[in-house]
């Protein structure tokens, strides 16, 4: 029986949460292989953990993974995808107070703007949008790091003039009212892939069958998550400890991120994101093909 060391984070990996919380629903977990779960704060430390060989598979954002490849000599395959921004669904957005004088992106000049992670995945499209509107992201605004959890408060307290919003905090803030959306990432590009599942290449090459089983379980986990919203809410509640009523307002609804039914990675979209990162000077140009394993990729039955 083999063990696979998996890194995870919150809040949007329903298929993995299912695997963690309802292992009995999966034929092989705990039988043909074991999963050693480690939770991380954000995807960047997981990239380091992957590079250090402390993890075999982990949740990744396209940017952190690419950073690992460029700077950290990491070789990895994208084996599945967790959430992306589906058209009409939720898109990470920057909010301002209702009574704020900021009406357009151009008005951000000279303001303090919050972002969840400086140099993180959202910053590429963010920079692109600012530039398109004549705002120099390095000079014209004061960028501060504000985690999603405190962004609403930071905005309401006036610590920042604009701040990015993500689920479930966006749902909560909207319910309270008093804030409005200034712009969202979908304006920069559609189908943004937020988080995906990546495995270390050397591990995959050594244990193709094991990873295959793992990816198969992710695929079926995603299916279960989408099929049984009721149960998914419970699972997510157990993991996030977020109250059910809050989850109820958005989870797997129209105002949520999109999820591919087979957890299949959208490689063209990822390529587009890498291009944006290259364009904004965050990364050298990268080809998404290097992340593609010929066989081991969701959906796997």
């Amino acid at each position, binding site marked *: 029986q083999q063990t696979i060391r998996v890194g995870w984070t919150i809040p949007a990996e329903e298929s993995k949460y299912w695997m963690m919380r309802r292992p009995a629903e999966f034929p092989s977990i705990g039988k043909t292989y074991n999963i050693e779960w480690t939770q991380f704060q954000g995807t960047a430390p997981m990239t380091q953990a992957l*590079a250090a060989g402390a993890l075999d598979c982990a949740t990744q954002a396209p940017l952190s993974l690419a*950073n*690992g490849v460029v700077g*950290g000599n990491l070789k990895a395959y994208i084996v599945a995808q967790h959430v992306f921004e589906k058209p009409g669904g939720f898109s990470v957005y920057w909010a301002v107070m209702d009574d704020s004088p900021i009406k357009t992106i151009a008005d951000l000049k000279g303001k303090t703007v919050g972002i969840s992670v400086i140099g993180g995945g959202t910053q590429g499209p963010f920079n692109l949008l600012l530039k398109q509107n004549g705002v120099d992201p390095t000079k014209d605004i004061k960028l501060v790091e*504000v985690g999603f*959890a405190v962004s609403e408060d930071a905005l309401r307290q006036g610590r920042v003039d604009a701040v990015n919003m993500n689920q479930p905090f966006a749902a909560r803030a909207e319910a309270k009212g008093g804030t409005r959306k200034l712009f969202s990432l979908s304006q920069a590009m559609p189908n943004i892939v937020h988080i995906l599942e990546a495995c270390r290449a050397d591990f995959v090459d050594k244990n193709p069958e094991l990873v295959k089983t793992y990816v198969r379980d992710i695929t079926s986990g995603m299916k279960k998550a989408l099929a049984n919203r009721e149960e998914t809410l419970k699972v997510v509640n157990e993991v996030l400890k977020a109250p059910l009523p809050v989850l109820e307002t958005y989870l797997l609804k129209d105002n949520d991120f999109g999820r591919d039914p087979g957890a299949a990675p959208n490689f063209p979209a990822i390529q587009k994101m890498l291009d944006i990162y290259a364009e904004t000077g965050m990364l050298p140009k990268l080809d998404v093909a290097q992340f593609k394993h010929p066989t081991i990729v969701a959906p796997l039955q």
Partner: protein
Amino acid sequence: MTRLLSANVFLGIAPIVLVIALWQGLVSFGFAPAVLLPPPGFVFSRLLQQLVTWTFQQEIAATLIRLFAGFAIAVVLGVSIGIAAAANPAINAVVRPIVRVLAPLPKVALYPALLLLLGFGHGSKITLVAADALFPILLSTYYGASTVEQKLIWSAMAAGTPRYEILFKVVLPAAMPSILTGCRIGLVISCIVVFLAEMITSTDGLGHALVTAARTFQAVDMFVPLITISLLGLILNGLLGALRSYLLRGFPEA
């Protein structure tokens, strides 16, 4: 005397050299990939390059301001509360339980609340540093002050020293060895925490430099701030040590 001094300096440098050698060894013999652990030579030459740049100096300055401000607040509060608690039973009765509750709290958990209260600038970070460095200093001061040789206090009282002045004229100097030990620990904690605060909400400072480098896997740039904080710790401790041997020159252990 000078021979002794240089022998001690040599003894002190030896282990640091060893550590650097070990580091080099780990890199050379492949125990750690260069992307995680760059060779020391690279790091030090980058450090030298960086040290002369204006931006890096600014980062250091930001960190130092927070470090000193936080540490200074911690020293002032810790020493005064510690001495007051040792001297006055009423204050003691109030302070002791409060310290018992507050000391072991993980202050980082309060950081988000601090951010909202004090903003993203110096205020919140300085507060966090002060909050974390306070208790070691307070505890050492308290124990130091409550074991001051009684007859010293009696001598001063008999010489007509007013009560509150005894705190400054006798209790403070007599507890000085213990207080300085607390300060030394507080200083190290300050170094760690200022960095942590800058890593968590990274706006500027050495911690910020580290986090940005770490996210983009620039190992060399990541180690530069680490080495800098190490050196800062060493230098500040050297200064504290010098201050210590000056202040304690009359004590048998100095």
